[in-house]
């Protein structure tokens, strides 16, 4: 019975982490458990969500995308910079297209030029950040039209606002993708590219598509945030880097590929933002918030490593026990 409970907790540990943080913070952090603050947590999470979903897809495909932060900044700059001439629909469309092009460039570097994804996306990160600095001249772009921002941040359903709903819809769509054939193929490409290739799956196409989706999603997050604050700062996306990578790893996505869950990434983003928000309610400084996030990340990585070791030790002996050990055995959900 006890073992069963432990397995259930292990399998749903991201949810347990979120509930634990919410309960503890509600008990000790002043003004944490209020409707306004939960709305604030969701708004803050929404900024990171699209990029986190995109990175999850890339990591499931067995690669890494470090360029999403500068992609967010660039998309924000494009959306704000072009809004006076093209209006919001045109400006956002161009921002999303530029995100897709960035993703396709990453995909081509990884699949065609055979550059390691860490190196390739580090390079595109630097190039795009340079473009952002040139376009902004080191300053901030702004628009005087607050209507779109007011709508995106306005109350919709209780603690939800349109920007949060849009980001959750994007995450839901990505999660549903995991239940389709392309989603399952992506898992196989990440887990074992050779087998995937023998099975007739175009591995290069899947990897490129994952990068392209990551680029579009990061651009969507950046453009939406820029619209909501009616301005774009050249360093805007930098702050998402740590939160997004931490959330994807805490969410159980494997660095080796082939395993991950969009839903768990979403929960991990909300958990991390709740943690830093609760600490902020208590008056903690950013360094303390970073420290606490680091502890959560470290504990998650250690826990995952223990699971991997346990599975490896039982391989070939008691296969039924392996099933109990893998919390993410269902693959992409």
């Amino acid at each position, binding site marked *: 019975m006890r073992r069963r409970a*432990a*397995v259930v907790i*292990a399998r749903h*540990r991201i949810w*347990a*982490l979120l509930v*634990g*943080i919410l309960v*503890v913070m509600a008990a*000790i*952090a002043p*003004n944490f458990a209020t409707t*306004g*603050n939960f*709305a*604030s947590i969701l*708004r*803050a999470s929404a*900024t990171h969500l699209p990029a986190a979903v995109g990175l999850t897809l890339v990591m499931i495909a067995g690669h890494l995308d470090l360029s999403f932060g500068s992609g967010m900044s660039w998309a924000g700059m494009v959306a704000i910079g072009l809004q006076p001439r093209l209006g919001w629909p045109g400006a956002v469309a161009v921002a999303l297209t530029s995100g897709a092009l960035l993703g396709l460039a990453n995909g081509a570097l990884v699949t065609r030029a055979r550059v390691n994804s860490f190196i390739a996306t580090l390079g595109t990160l630097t190039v795009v950040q340079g473009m952002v*600095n040139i376009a*902004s001249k*080191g*300053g*901030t*772009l*702004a628009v*005087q039209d607050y209507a779109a*921002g007011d709508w995106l*941040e306005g109350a919709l359903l209780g603690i939800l606002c349109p920007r949060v709903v849009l980001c959750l819809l994007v995450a839901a769509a990505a999660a549903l993708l995991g239940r389709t054939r392309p989603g399952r193929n992506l898992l196989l490409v990440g887990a074992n590219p050779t087998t995937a290739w023998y099975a007739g799956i175009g591995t290069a196409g899947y990897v490129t598509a994952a990068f392209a989706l990551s680029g579009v999603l990061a651009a969507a997050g950046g453009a939406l*945030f820029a619209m909501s*604050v*009616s*301005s774009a*700062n*050249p*360093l*805007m996306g*930098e*702050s*998402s880097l740590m939160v997004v990578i931490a959330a994807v790893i805490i969410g159980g996505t494997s660095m080796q590929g082939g395993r991950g869950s969009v839903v768990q990434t979403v929960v991990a983003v909300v958990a991390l933002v709740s943690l830093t*928000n*609760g*600490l*902020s*309610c*208590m*008056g*903690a*400084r*950013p*360094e*303390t*918030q970073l420290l*606490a996030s680091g*502890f*959560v990340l470290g*504990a998650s990585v*250690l*826990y995952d490593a*223990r699971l991997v070791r346990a599975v490896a030790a039982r391989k070939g002996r008691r296969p039924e026990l392996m099933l109990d050990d893998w919390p993410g055995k269902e693959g992409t959900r």
Partner: protein
Amino acid sequence: MTSRAAAAPVALALAAALFAGCGERTARKRSQQPTSQASVDVSTLKSEDGQPLVIVDESPLVPPTRPADPKALPEDDALHWFDIEYAGWKCRKVNQPRPPAGGARGKRVICLRFMDHPYLTAYTKGMQKVADACGISLKTMVANNDINLQSQQVDQAINERPDLVIILPVDATAVVPLLRKMNQAGIPVIASNLIPIDEGMKYILTWTGPNDWGQFRMLARDFAERMNYDGGYCIVRHMPGSSPFFSRTFAITTELKKIAPKMKCLDMQATKLQAEPTMQVVADWITRFGARLKGIVSADDSGAQIGINEAVAGANREDIIRVAAGNSKVGMDFVKAGTLHAITYQSAEADGALPMKLAVDWLNGKPIEKPVYYLPKRIITRANVDRYMPAQW
């Protein structure tokens, strides 16, 4: 074993949270000590350097005539920067709330700081001194120079419904929607230290801080005299997006164009105010410009100035005239040693004390009369540096 492992992150986070929460609670407890507002005269409070804590430049605000389109003018024309330099001087305030009843004592003020820095630690110390003296509860949030984080903290502040917010913007432009949001939520706001662009000034009660444009024009005159009104110079800039990014660059270039047309700006770069990148940039300048480089202006007299001095010493170019925004211990030690020739006087504690003093006045029902309150302008050189010792940060 499994459940223990799952509980570990939460336990660690909890421990960190408890550890982090201590400081704020102590500050709150201190500020709740009974103090009679009527008996407190904050003008008697002193900064760590022995200077008066609450100081203000009483000069009237008389801007020149605004050009039809300042942006159409070249960047080395002072009027190009009209909307930044004179931000808020002539704005009409909108939707300003009225002071709550019952006076300042026991009221809650939230300070949203843009980053952690020794200057801002001293700034908060000055603010806390006035808050303690007047029975105000002060809570500080730090945005780590991240506009996303400051945006979240504004939401948190609105959620907590304090009696007043003092904000030090991360970004002069991006802060405007945040000021508007607090204004619409009926929260009185005083902006401080870094000035928002003109568009944001109508949403706040007032702005307080150093007169960066005025100080740097004063510094430019001192710099020109030391350079014999001739030669090339470079500028180490402040953080991109912040108001000093513009003021500490273009107050110098526009003033020097006017008073020393033979002086030429060779290059300007932002180095995150850190020693290592600044050293690299300055070393490159020395190599690139050689003897043409005769002076360096720095937006910071601590981290950035360390880098400048290291590069200058490394290249054996001690002849380069150096001036900076001050006045940290590092900067004042450099001034005493003669490796930095002039710095601006900017009392960090007074910078933090002034908005809190105005907040107390406003909470006590006293109207805030000016849209902008500047700290006095002074230049520190080797001749007068001892007057400002010991340093505040």
